[in-house]
């Protein structure tokens, strides 16, 4: 067994410090050590995107990063995006447009979509399909996910205009 490392993360605005083996994958750190269970374990082979989190401004599959690599970084999970009382426009849109059925992929979908809309606030349907290609859904056939993201983009742009 290798030596444990002292690791510091900032998760959803909160500083976390702990000792962990370097081989601990970030998804396990989040779910089992920190009890942040929004990011899910789907395929665990870097394909499905259910474990997607935002790390220093990048959408990352947290099953494919060691906690040691994330040492010193800022991480946002679905828990940091909205709350049950105050849903993010994307969460509201997924609810409104049936962007989920079983809901397993949804935290990863929405976390990825926040970054997509940040980089491209006016995406076309094609932009969304291409930009969401790292997230798999086995229920919806993607149609309503795309619809939800388009609706959220419109909503967020309208809110931004109203604020200006």
């Amino acid at each position, binding site marked *: 067994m*290798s030596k444990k490392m002292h690791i510091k993360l900032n998760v959803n605005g909160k500083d976390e410090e702990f000792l962990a*083996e370097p*081989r601990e*994958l970030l998804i396990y750190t989040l779910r089992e050590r920190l009890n942040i269970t929004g990011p899910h374990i789907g395929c665990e082979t*870097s394909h499905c995107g259910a474990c997607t989190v935002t790390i220093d401004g990048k*959408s*990352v599959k947290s*099953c494919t990063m060691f906690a040691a690599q994330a040492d010193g970084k800022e991480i946002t999970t679905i828990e940091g995006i909205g709350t049950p009382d105050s849903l993010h426009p994307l969460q509201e849109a997924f609810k409104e447009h049936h962007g989920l059925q079983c809901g397993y992929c949804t935290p990863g979908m929405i976390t*990825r979509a926040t970054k997509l809309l940040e980089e491209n606030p006016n995406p076309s349907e094609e932009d969304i399909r291409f930009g969401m290609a*790292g997230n798999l859904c086995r229920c919806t056939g993607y149609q309503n996910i795309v619809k939800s993201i388009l609706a959220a983009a419109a909503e967020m742009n309208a809110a931004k205009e109203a604020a200006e």
Partner: protein
Amino acid sequence: MIPAAFDYYRPTKMDDVIALLQEHGDDARVMAGGHSLIPMMKLRMAEIPHLIDLQAIDGLNEISIEDGQITIGAMVTQHDLINHAGLEAAAPILREAALQIADPQVRYMGTVGGNVANGDPGNDMPGVMQCLDATFALVGPDGERSVAARDFYEAAYMTAREDEEVLTSVSIPAPQGGYAYEKQKRKIGDYATAAAAVQIVKEDGKCTAASIAMTNLSDTPIYSVDAGAALVGTAVDAAALNAAKAAMLGNIDPTEDNRGPVAFKKHVAGVILARAIERAWSRA
């Protein structure tokens, strides 16, 4: 999936990286984005007792374009590459290829250096770099040396890089003419069944230079001198396309796997090369 235990290092100086590689030899490996290596470690197909993370080394994530020479640091990610306006103007084939690699999340982490250094015949950038006649800078205990991309790949996962060396950057003479990277894959995120990188120069309706490399059709990328030569001096008509295809098919050596039997791969390679040449020619 839990990888075998390892010691993790995040050095800030390249000298320290080299020292670790010298100390631990084959038991040590450098890691850039980790999106090839970590999945292999999780499957326990790779055991790396000493893992050296390059993220804190300065100067590996720069892109420069000067005097017709493009230099890309090894830690530049596919995402960085796709979003670099200067690079899109100077060598648009890089962006076209990078957009066909993996998926958005993987492209935020996956690096140019990792893609070319790993030696996986499925990686896309090695063929692109051979097409562009890139050279790779390698730093080791005896200093720096450079190796042409066309001489770098020896067999699957076997390259001209020594165990104690690190690939630090890629240099490319700014390409001329039309370009295309055409890739056939089963789904987003997959490696190529066949892919072709083409750069082609047109003068007065005739091809004066052509460079062609193929991905995932042998245990290394294949730079096909013969396929390029078959186009030079022609108007890239049907006969020239067929000659280039035939020449390319003489250079590749695909094997049967879950992407299909050999005959299918050769068929797809021909289709993909023809498409790539036609698109590059239309842009020349």
